[in-house]
């Protein structure tokens, strides 16, 4: 077992007839992910690369018995798409979409909780269990199968670290991109807990950044509940306060959320923190 997804995941792509959705759906299929269908309201009955397109998630889930959904629709429709997936009985919803208003996300997260659905993201690169399945946009080439769990707020930084690990012969159990928005469905602690309980994960790499206090809460968890070693990197040491660094959540505000306080907390919790992400493989070796 890996965490969240494996070979058996039956995946629907919401927005499969869109440019991004279709492009990534195809790459996911090529990787071996079992993409069982897609949803685009108004395009039910069409086909995409041999899989059926449905008008609604309800019909799609009834027909395909899918258990995972990937949301690739534009920001102003994404909140509704996530709720539609949860309402249709999907238990794992992964949302790539960037720029969803926080007020929508707060409602969506409460909605998902009430429906017993786990949301990953939004504004995240998705989840990949190397050699088994990927749901999202993480490139196939950045990881091989192994026993390090990776959890990250950032996309390309994760690829960078995964690729560096691969080059040093370190494999990955599952990569979870939790996203860089201020309010997200699944936090560092949620994923750390899964890795802690996953027999195929032996070590964990955590890639954080400035803004909020999720890494501080993670440090608490690492200190009190984790037995597996953690290597970490926090991006944004050189970022000025009060400025939003690309990610909606990446802002040091009112003295809270600086890289320094996060690094201190993680180190105090026993994690090994790299000053340079290319050192992460060494810390895991």
């Amino acid at each position, binding site marked *: 077992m890996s965490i969240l997804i494996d070979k058996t995941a039956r995946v629907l792509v919401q927005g499969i007839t869109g440019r991004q959705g279709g492009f990534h759906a195809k790459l996911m299929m090529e990787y071996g992910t079992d993409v069982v269908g897609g949803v685009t309201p108004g395009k039910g009955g069409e086909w995409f690369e041999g899989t059926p397109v449905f008008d609604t998630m309800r019909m799609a889930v009834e027909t395909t018995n899918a258990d995972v959904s990937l949301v690739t629709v534009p920001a102003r429709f994404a909140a509704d798409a996530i709720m539609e997936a949860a309402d249709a009985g999907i238990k794992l919803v992964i949302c790539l979409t960037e720029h969803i208003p926080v007020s929508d996300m707060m409602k969506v997260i409460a909605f998902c909780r009430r429906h017993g659905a786990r949301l990953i993201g939004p504004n995240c690169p998705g989840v990949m269990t190397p050699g088994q399945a990927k749901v999202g*946009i993480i490139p196939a080439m950045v990881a091989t199968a192994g026993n390090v769990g990776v959890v990250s707020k950032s996309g*390309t930084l994760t690829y960078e670290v995964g690729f560096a690990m691969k080059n040093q012969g370190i494999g990955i159990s599952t990569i979870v991109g939790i996203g860089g928005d201020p309010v997200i469905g699944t936090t560092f602690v949620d994923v750390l807990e899964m890795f802690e309980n996953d027999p195929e994960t032996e070590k964990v790499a955590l890639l954080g950044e400035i803004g909020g206090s999720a890494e501080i809460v993670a440090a608490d968890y690492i200190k009190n509940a984790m037995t597996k070693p953690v290597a970490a990197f926090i991006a*944004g040491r*050189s970022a000025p306060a009060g400025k939003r660094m690309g*990610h909606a*959540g*990446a802002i040091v505000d009112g003295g809270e959320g600086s890289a320094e306080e996060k690094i201190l907390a993680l180190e105090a919790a026993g994690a090994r923190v790299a000053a340079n992400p290319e050192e992460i493989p060494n810390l895991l070796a």
Partner: protein
Amino acid sequence: MKLHEYQSKFLFADYGIPIPRGKVATSADEARAIAEELGGIVVIKAQVQVGGRGKAGGVKVARDADEAQHHAERILGMNIKGLTVERVLVDPGADIVQEIYLAITNDRGAGKPLIMTSMEGGMDIEELNRERPEAIIREHIDPIMGLKDFQMTYIASAMGMPRAQWRSFGKVLKGLYNCYRASDAELAEINPLAITGDGELLAVDGKVIIDDNALFRQPALTEQRDSSGEPESERQAREAGITYIKLDGQIGCMVNGAGLAMTTMDMTKLYGDADGIGPANFLDIGGGASPEQVAAALRIILSDSNVKCVLFNIFGGITRCDEVAHGILTAYNEVKPSVPMVIRLQGTNAVEGSKIINEARIPNIAGADTLTEAAKRAVAAVKEQG
């Protein structure tokens, strides 16, 4: 997007929150006229989006219209933390008996709106939070249910609000919540919310920050944007759909992805800090950037005269590095930068990409395999220029 004090307060008034009946002036004569109209003591307040304007001399009390004109003359045009004061708010003086802090903000960790309030208002809330956190009452709002009446009673009683003000405090709180929700605010703050001599509540100062991602459905608020405090280069980048933040180092950075962009900045500082060298900017060129966007980004980076070197760090995932290399060369030929450039391409088709760059044989372009190597090269290039 931040609103000015006067914009915030006028917005509050739309939600039934009592505010002083002041007006905005852009000239001293206007300020005089407003002071005459209001009569009595007035307060002249610089409208700039930074904290500490009071200490900087941007807030003055005037006993009459003459004094109001005099103060407005001095405050208008004043430079406060790099921002020029273009407007003043002329508010009637208030008879303040008690200052309350009241704000609603997004609690990231809980994923819920959070009310923070205290009878010890007026001062900086972060300071109060450090010194006497128990003086601040915190209450979450269920994002789906919204603020409930019983929560208003809970808050008023828990914070020690005098009973005479419970009803009016409830109205202010409900108004502030409606304002926060309807405006897609990240923060809606009244500080101080005054209890006046006649027992009324009055929002004496206000601050509202709108979620940029929600501006598409907030046309009236979007119109109120004041870009005067924003550096010209950041405004240009915003309009070109690029996230760019000007910093004060020498190495211009062009990166795909926000996390990697911050990391690249951090690396230049990690290896350059000892020599006073660091990043000149944050720049995320995004996923599928076109040659035109790369060129625009390059121009924006070079518009900063501090830039002594440009560092490209591209991790090709879905994006193919050969395509990016073509884009960089096109941009180069268009912009013709004279500063040295370090280009590091990694990931999908990185070898092909590097080959394209090398074959162009451009003297001021150097390659690098790793981010570490790239950052060190960029630092060295700046050092060479003294």
